[in-house]
């Protein structure tokens, strides 16, 4: 892990991969370090911000270095089920790219236990990975102007659920009726770093 300077009130922790980032994020949250305001995991980094005047960054760096890394898969985490209809406009194209029949691809997607590695792109948009999901699906070369909230897409080795209507370049394989983002709820996001997700076919 490299600990990088990030202004007066934050450190950027640079790690090897997405699993290490999520594991460290969990370890930091579990440790309940004083003064910590935000812990933001990303593809291979964790940004940790502290409230001004609470913790010296040098002290924070020492505390983080001393944390035992948590393997994300071993943590006890909240699990959610997401109902899904596999009716996306890109489903056939994704099957071709993966070299699988529709039934086989859907079956494999359903059998994974997905973990939200980080949130990006839009509030509540969780990037989910699964150990046995090794397909790397390219994004559309040009984004669709509108993807509906609830659309379930694939891009790279990630799976995601669009939290609100927005433009988007992911390959859409289905949709859910579950509202994964609702600012009036607290917390507003169903998919938060570390959340484990199982897709359940509804028809």
């Amino acid at each position: 892990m490299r600990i990088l300077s990030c202004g007066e009130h934050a450190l950027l922790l640079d790690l090897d991969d997405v699993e290490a980032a999520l594991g460290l994020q969990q370890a930091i949250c579990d440790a309940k370090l004083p003064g910590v305001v935000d812990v933001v995991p990303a593809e291979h980094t964790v940004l940790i911000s502290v409230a001004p005047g609470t913790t010296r960054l040098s002290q924070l760096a020492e505390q983080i270095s001393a944390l035992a890394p948590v393997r994300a898969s071993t943590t006890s985490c909240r699990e959610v089920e997401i109902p899904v209809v596999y009716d996306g406009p890109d489903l056939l194209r994704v099957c071709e790219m993966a070299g699988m029949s529709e039934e086989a691809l859907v079956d494999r997607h359903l059998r994974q236990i997905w973990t939200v590695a980080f949130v990006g792109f839009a509030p509540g948009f969780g990037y989910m990975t699964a150990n046995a999901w090794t397909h790397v699906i390219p994004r559309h070369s040009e984004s669709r102007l509108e993807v509906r909230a609830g659309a379930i897409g694939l891009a790279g080795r990630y799976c995601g659920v669009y939290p609100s209507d927005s433009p988007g370049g992911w390959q859409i394989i289905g949709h859910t009726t579950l509202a994964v983002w609702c600012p009036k709820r607290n917390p507003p996001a169903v998919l938060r770093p570390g959340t484990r997700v199982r897709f359940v076919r509804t028809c």
Partner: protein
Amino acid sequence: MLTVLATGPLTTIQDCGRPGHAAMGVRHSGAVDAASYALANRLVGNKRNAAALETTFGGLMIRSSEAVEVAVTGSTAPVVLNGRPEGRNAVLVLRSGDMLTIGPPTAGVRSYLAVRGGIEIPQVLGSRSTDTLSGIGPAVVKVGDTMAIGNQIDGHPLLDQAPTADFSSAEVTLRVILGPRNDWFGTSAIDVLQGSAWTSTNHSNRIGMRLAGPKLPRAQYGELASEGVVNGALQVPPTGRPTIFLADHPVTGGYPVIAVLRTTDIALAAQTQPGQVIRFVIDGDIGTVQ
């Protein structure tokens, strides 16, 4: 009750923002110039998180339907009460029917209007701030809006006025701390960053401000995986000209951040007008702690 008669180019409701939700992709938001916002609340005896109006390049006009104390801080915009000029950074008393106008600033960009008790609207995720990009919080203020006054008071106003240095319309020097991705740039880029006259452009909003100037040469090419970014970060896109992130900046960014502004200098940056010259001085080495 306040009634909005004019908004200028952009007026929003802001408070201390939404810290603590970044892992869910929620932006911080809140007042861009946190110090001026805090002063306005202090002048009228409000709690520190009371919601105030942030207006950009002036043009805000309100009418009050009740007697209430207000204060205007921030840019050097003229404050006019019922046609008479009044002072900034001072407690003003509005009576029922009074009209208050904030004119165009000669220096600075954003002004804050705090009303004793704060603006009363429902909180979203613990804040009354407008997030201009995600649409979280109240809508942008428009003509005809009415706003109830809350009870976010904290004792009585202690001061009538607060002597404050005006924002400069001349060259501004901002202190930066290198990192986290200064190693993506050559040492010559650090020289260019420190040695150049940068210009604030009109590609500026609450999300960030794009600067004009020479190109910061990269030492590393390729794509950076998106990573968390902070307020005041100098993110450098492939054009080589930095963008300074402000309150509504995205939670993560995909271009390397060469340096981050000192926290107190973020407001100085955000209060520069388009065309104004900015210089950077490196203040503290990598790993510097407060």
